């Protein structure tokens, strides 16, 4: 639920990066934090466990300027990917306006991607939301591993596994190198904010 403050003429939009553990969600936000430092007034917040894994979420507030006289504050979140943290994933999804699903391109992670997407679908249903009509972008991350000779899934396979019914926009990306990280983010912001325009007339 995006929040509009008609007095300050400000809109807050919540975008969540979802996906299997170690797929690169936190790395996406870290890259954005570095790359767009000027637009980010506050520090990135990370709630970590021992060993650098996301326990609760990462949070990055991001100003994207004005639309129809309203300043738009985008709040980027990640969820913890590990299976055991489903309760916290659900808390982070509360009030979500747009989603990026970060899939791991490594061969070994094929099943985990599918399970995580299914888990997202189920968690959205607990909030009476459908994965089919919420703004969504898929990111096939870690494409750079191919150069290192590590077996990765083809984008066709990933499309078939994850996107055959959703038909969401998708990007082949490398979060460590920064390839298509900004493009993924811009796409989800455009989709999410696009659905807001009417409301701001």
């Amino acid at each position: 639920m995006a929040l509009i403050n008609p007095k300050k003429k400000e809109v807050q939009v919540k975008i969540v990066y979802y996906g299997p553990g170690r797929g690169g969600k936190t790395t996406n936000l870290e890259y954005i934090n570095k790359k767009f430092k000027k637009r980010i007034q506050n520090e990135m917040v990370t709630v970590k466990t021992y060993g650098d894994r996301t326990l609760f979420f990462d949070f990055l507030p991001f100003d994207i300027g004005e639309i129809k006289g309203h300043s738009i504050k985008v709040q980027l979140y990640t969820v913890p990917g590990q299976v055991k943290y489903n309760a916290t994933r659900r808390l982070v999804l509360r009030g979500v306006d747009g989603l990026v699903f970060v899939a791991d391109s490594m061969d070994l992670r094929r099943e985990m991607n599918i399970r995580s997407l299914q888990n997202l679908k189920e968690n959205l249903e607990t909030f009476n939301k459908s994965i089919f009509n919420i703004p969504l972008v898929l990111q096939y991350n870690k494409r750079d591993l191919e150069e290192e000779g590590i077996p990765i899934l083809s984008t066709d396979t990933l499309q078939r596994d994850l996107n055959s019914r959703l038909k969401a926009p998708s990007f082949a990306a490398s979060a460590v190198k920064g390839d298509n990280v900004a493009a993924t983010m811009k796409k989800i912001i455009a989709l999410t904010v696009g659905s807001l325009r009417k409301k701001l007339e």
Partner: protein
Amino acid sequence: MDFTIEFDKQQIESIENILQEELIDLGVQSVILMDLAGNVIVNLENGDSSHDVYSLAALAAGNYGAVSAMANIIGEQEFSLLFHKGEEESIHFSKVVEDLLLLTIFNKNVSLGFLRLKVAEAIKRIQVLI
């Protein structure tokens, strides 16, 4: 896109007035009215300090959700008082209505008992507005 709670300009101004009178004038440093998605609806500061309210709201929403889930596990509906005490500053959370929280940050000059009383009064006044 769904908007669960909407506020018009006048509601926001009325809420600001209540929070100013009941809490800021009492000596509270900072008040945030927020929803459980982590959105900041109203924020007032007394001018002595400034906080990163968006990050605070994101963390508070997660914290409140986690504590509520803990309450459910032990068979409680909710824990009514959420309070974190620091050396200098403390944070107090209170539910306003379903999905809305009031977060106050205050220092040693304000007693917890008095704060709770004033928070309860502010909440009562806000509830009739929304």
